[in-house]
C-alpha cells in the first residue's frame, strides 16, 4: 500500500497541496473582513503546515513529524476554544465582527 502511494503520488504533489492550502489561508486572512472567516483561514494555514509535517514524516520515516502534528492540533483546539470565546465577547460588545471596525486601540 505504501509503496503504491510512493509510486503513484510523488512528494512534490503533497508539498504543493500543502503550500496551496497555506497560501489560501494567508490570502483569506488578508482579504476577509469577517472575524470568523479570518479565524477559519488561520485553521487552514495550520492544516497546510500539518500536511507538510506528515508528508515529511512519511518520507523520512521519522515519527517526530507526526508528534508535531498532534501538538499543532492540540494547540489549534485550544486556540479555537479561546478564539471563539473572544469572538463571542467581541460580538456582544460591538455588535459587529468586521475586523476593520474593531479598532478601539488605534490612535
Amino acid at each position, binding site marked *: 500500500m505504501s509503496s503504491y502511494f510512493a509510486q503513484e503520488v510523488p512528494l512534490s504533489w503533497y508539498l504543493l497541496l500543502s503550500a496551496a492550502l497555506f497560501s489560501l489561508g*494567508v490570502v483569506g*486572512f*488578508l*482579504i476577509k473582513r469577517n472575524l470568523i472567516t479570518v479565524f477559519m483561514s488561520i485553521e487552514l494555514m495550520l492544516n497546510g503546515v500539518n500536511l507538510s509535517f506528515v508528508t515529511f514524516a512519511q518520507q523520512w520515516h521519522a515519527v517526530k513529524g507526526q508528534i508535531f502534528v498532534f501538538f499543532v492540533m492540540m494547540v489549534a483546539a485550544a486556540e479555537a476554544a479561546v478564539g471563539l470565546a473572544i469572538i463571542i465577547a467581541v460580538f456582544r460588545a460591538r455588535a459587529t465582527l468586521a*475586523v*476593520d471596525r474593531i*479598532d478601539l*486601540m488605534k*490612535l
Partner: protein
Amino acid sequence: MNAYLHLWLIPLLPFAGFLINGILGRRLPKWLVTAIALLAPLAAFGVVLNASVLGLLPLFVDPTGIPSLPGVSLPYIETCPLPWINAGMLHINFSFVLDQLSLVMLLVVTGVGFLIHVYSVGYMGDDKGYARYFSYLNLFLFFMTVLVLAGNALVMFIGWEGVGLASYLLIGFWFQKKSAADAGKKAFIVNRIGDFGFLIGMFLLIANFGTLTFTDIAAKLGQDPGWNGGVVTVIALCLMLGAAGKSAQLPLYIWLPDAMEGPTPVSALIHAATMVTAGVYMVARTHVLFDHSPFALSVVAIIGAATAIFAATIALVQNDIKRVLAYSTISQLGYMFLGCGVAAYSAAIFHLMTHAFFKALLFMAAGSVIHAIGGEQDLRKMGGLRKKLPVTFWTMTAAVLAIAGFFPFAGFFSKDAILYAAFLQGTSGKILWFFGVLTALLTSFYMFRLWYLTFMGESRSPDVHPHESPWSMRGPLIILALLSVGGGWIGMERFGDFLAPSVGVLPTETGSARLEILLSIVAVLVALEGWLIADKLYRRKPARPAQWAAALPGGYKLLANKYFVDEFYGAVVVKPLLGFSKFVLEWVVDFGILGGAAWLLGGIATFTGAILQRWQSGNLRSYAAWLAAGAAAVLLFLLVPWATVLASLSAIHLGMAGH
C-alpha cells in the same frame, strides 16, 4: 631630661569637644554641653601651662645654662612618626614646634580662649544653638592651635584655612539673618584672596627651597647671607598678601567690620584677640624671609601704618559700638604690621598679646552692655550706664585706658615699643612714627568717645532697664581687666629677650633710654589730648560733634560711609563678576548646555518616533501582510542566492524607505 610635652593634646582636646558637642550636643543636657565645652579649652590650657613650666623653668632656676631640673629645651619639636607627604624630592612631615613664639601665642589663644568660653556660657545661655555654638568655638580653638604649633607652612595652612572655616561658621551663626549669612560669605571669600597669596608663596618656597619647614628655610637662608631680594621678595610679598587677608589689612580689611554680625564673644575671640592676629604671627614666624628682603619689609610697614590710620579715621564716626571696635581692631593690627615692618617682631608680638587682652575685654564689655540693654548696639541710644553696670564700666575703663596707651596700662608698653622701634628706622621710620602717633591720638579719641557715649551722661533710652550680666560674664571681664592693667609690666626688654631666639633681637642699637622715655611722654601726651578732645565734644559740649559734621558734610560723609570702599569694590569687582557668572550660568550653562541637551534628546525621540509610528498603523491586515511578506522574503533569500544582492541594491535605490 627631655620630658614629653604632649603637644598633640593641645589641638586634639578642643577637637574632641567639637566632635562630642557637634554630634551629640542636641541630645545632651545643657550642663553637660557646658562642661565639655569648657573642659576642652581648659585642659588644653593646662597642657600649655605644663609645657611652659617645663620649657621655662630651667631658664629661671639655672641661668648658667646647665639645667638642673627636668625640663625641655626650646625649640621642642614633635613630629608625627608616619611620613605625611612624600612626593619626589618633597618630604613634608606633620610636625608641631614649641618655641618661645608659639608658646606666647598658645598662652594667649588657650588662655583668652578659655575665658571667652566661660563668658559665652552667660552670653549665649538662652540661644537655641547653644551646643552648635560651643562646638564651633572648640573647632576654632582646634584649628588655631594647629596654626600656632605648626612646624612647617603646610600644617600652618591647614590651621589657617580651618580658622577661616570656623570664622565663617561663627559669623553666620545666626544664619536666619540674611546680613549675618552674607557677612560670613564675605569674610570667607575675601580671605580666599589672601589664601591665594599664601598658596603661591608656599609653591615658590617649595620651588626655591625644596622645603616648607620654617627652620630649614631659615637655615638655607642663613647659609647664604648675600641672598637678598629677588625671589625672596616675591615669596615674602605673597605671604604678606595672605597675612593681609587674615589680619584685615589694606586692601583686604573689608570683611572684618561685617564680621561683627556674629555673636559678640566670637568677635572678641576670633575677630579681635586671636584669629586676626594670625597674619602677624605668620609674618613673625617667617621673619627670616622678610629680613632678607628690605623691600617686602617696607611694604609691610607701609601697609601697617596706612591701615592703622585709615581704620582709625573711620572709627571716629561709627555709631555701632561693635563697628567702632572692629575698626579699632583693624587699626591696632596695623600697628602690629608696622612693628613687623620695622623688624621689631617681638614688639609686634608683645602688642599682639596685650591687644588680645584689652581688645577681647573691650568686646566682652561691649557684649555685656549689649546684653544688658536688650540687643541694642547703637551708641546714640546708650548713655548713663555707669551706675547700672558697675563691673562692666570699670573693666571697660581699664581696657579703654590700655588701648589709648596710658601709663601704666598694657597698651602703653607695647604700643611704645613699636613706635620707638619705628622711630629708630631713619627718615622713613620717622614718618611711620608720625603716623603711628597720629593714630594713637585718633585711637584715644574714638575710644573715649565710645566710653562717654556708653557710660556717661544720661540714658538716651529711658524705657530700657539695664541689668548687670551674670557672673559667668563678669568673671572673665575682671580677669582680663587685671591683665589689661598689668599685662604690660613684663616689660618690653624682658619680653624681647625672651622672644629673641625665635624672632631675633629688637633693632634698637641706635636708640637710647632717654629717647625712649621722651617718645613715651609724647605718646602719653597725645593719648591725653585725645581724651581731652573727646571729653570736650561728648561731655562738656555735646552739641559740637553734630555742628562739626554739618560744617564738613563731605568729610563726615566720607568717613561715615567708610571711604566708600565697599561701594568701590562692589562696583569694580563684585558687580562685573556677578554679571559675568550670571551670564555664564543663565546663557551658557542653563540655556546652552542643559537646555541644549534636553532639546536634543527630545528632538531625537520625536524624530525617530515620527518615522517609526507609521508602522504602527493599527490595521490588523497590514500587520499580517508584513508578516507574510517577511516570511516570503526569508524564503526567497534562502532559496535564491542572488536575491540578497538584488534586495540590497533595491534597498539602496529606495533609500531604505521600508514602508
